[in-house]
């Protein structure tokens, strides 16, 4: 697996997503309260650009008349048919075992370490005194 520098730390605001192309694949990189996650930009259902979907809380109910919102900013809803995915794992809300959007490991790496390699920084300019978001695939 190669490590790809996709953004400078701070470039993706909390609650936002940056769509990058890594090794020919579109990937959405999400910042959830300064934790970073990456999902393929393709819905496993019918292939829509998943990462263009709305970022939402999880909305649950144990019985009619009772509702609760949780996991704020951690669910992604596909822009086509509204299938929901957990951004942290790629698991779908309805079929977490069997329906998953592919996810990729993300790490934060200091520019100094990047200089030593091996990293691929195709589109991001790297400085030694800054930190970077790195996706592995």
């Amino acid at each position, binding site marked *: 697996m190669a490590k790809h520098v996709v953004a400078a730390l701070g470039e993706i605001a909390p609650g936002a997503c940056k769509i990058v192309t890594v090794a020919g694949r579109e990937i959405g990189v999400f910042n959830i309260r300064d934790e970073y996650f990456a999902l393929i930009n393709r819905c496993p*259902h019918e*292939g*829509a*650009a998943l990462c263009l979907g*709305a970022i939402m809380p999880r909305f649950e109910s144990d019985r009619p008349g009772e509702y609760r919102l949780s996991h704020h900013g951690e669910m992604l809803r596909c*822009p*086509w048919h509204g299938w929901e995915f957990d951004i942290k794992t790629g698991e779908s809300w309805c079929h977490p075992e069997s329906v*998953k959007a592919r996810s990729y490991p993300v790490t934060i790496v200091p520019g100094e370490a990047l200089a030593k390699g091996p990293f691929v920084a195709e589109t991001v300019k790297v400085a030694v005194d800054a930190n970077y978001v790195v996706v592995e695939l």
Partner: protein
Amino acid sequence: MNIAVADRQPDTARQTDLGIVDCDVHPYTKTPADLDQFLSERWRKHRASIGARSRGPFANAPNYPRMSPGVGMRMDAWPPGGGHPGSDLAMMREQLLDAFNVSHGMMMPLLGRGGDERNVEFGAALATAANDWEAQVWCDAEPRLKAAIQITTEYTEAAIKEIEKRAGDRRFTHVMIPPRGLEPLGRRRYWPILEACAANGFPIALHLGGTSGHPSTGGGWPSFYHEEHPSYPQSKEALVTSLVTEGVFEHIPNLRVALVEGGFAWLPSLGWRLDKHYLRLRDEVPHLKMLPSEYIRQNIWVTTQPIEEPERPEDILATCEWIGWDRIMFSTDYPHWDQDDPRYAFKVRIPEKEKQMLFRDNAVAFYNLD
């Protein structure tokens, strides 16, 4: 289940090579005022001062909330330059016509208000304006798009006049009739309109939508959109049953009817039920000379979206076989939230010959396309 879906290669290289026919494409106006240039001053004034008055419960809102803004649009179909999804030809080309090599896009505009408008003269004026708008704004700019003749089914004379006016204009390929009328479509009051469709060589597309003021299900008004959505097949079942039982296909044997946006997996069981009862109840309907399912196979076609997705994906093949592979036509429903992608809509591999029929040849014959 998903891994198979996620990892499989698009199954469409072949059918997009052929060019597919999409039997349900929705063009929209950028703003409602776009129709004004096609309305007379009298109706422009009416529109400005009185506006549309639906038979449904609300004047300016759908009966049920939809999944996304704009009455249920694909979230990635809002044009970057502004305007409604489906209103920007460049974007429609990029997301639909070019993306899937669509050779013919059968337009189903939801602007003419069908049987909804209580003021039937205004309804007829809107239908005519929307038809001019389709032909001039869309077909003339993009010949791959084919226009629907929108009519007001509750104003027979105006409807027939509109059908006859468009006959011979190759931009128009089908008459669009709302599936929820004041009465079931097979009733004799609608026969003159149905006769005019057949006499002028137009097939009918019964695209779901609109409201007649009747509850959308036989059990009354649903509470949720989730409950309303399955009422679409119910309204199609009622239509097919009415058309068959009233004897429409005995009276107009060459009438061709496409059911658009109601799925299709319910059709076999309806056929079984109608046939079973025909054996016991045919004294009541002596005008029927064939089994109900035989009329269905003779006069009814279906479109695929929103396609059923059974747990055992291969079950869809048996359903298609009962209906007949020559009766099923592919549709996307672009740019609505529940649209289908031709590469992934079917979760099973369709044999090559049947694929070509379903994605192209059936619709070319049905709509008499060049």
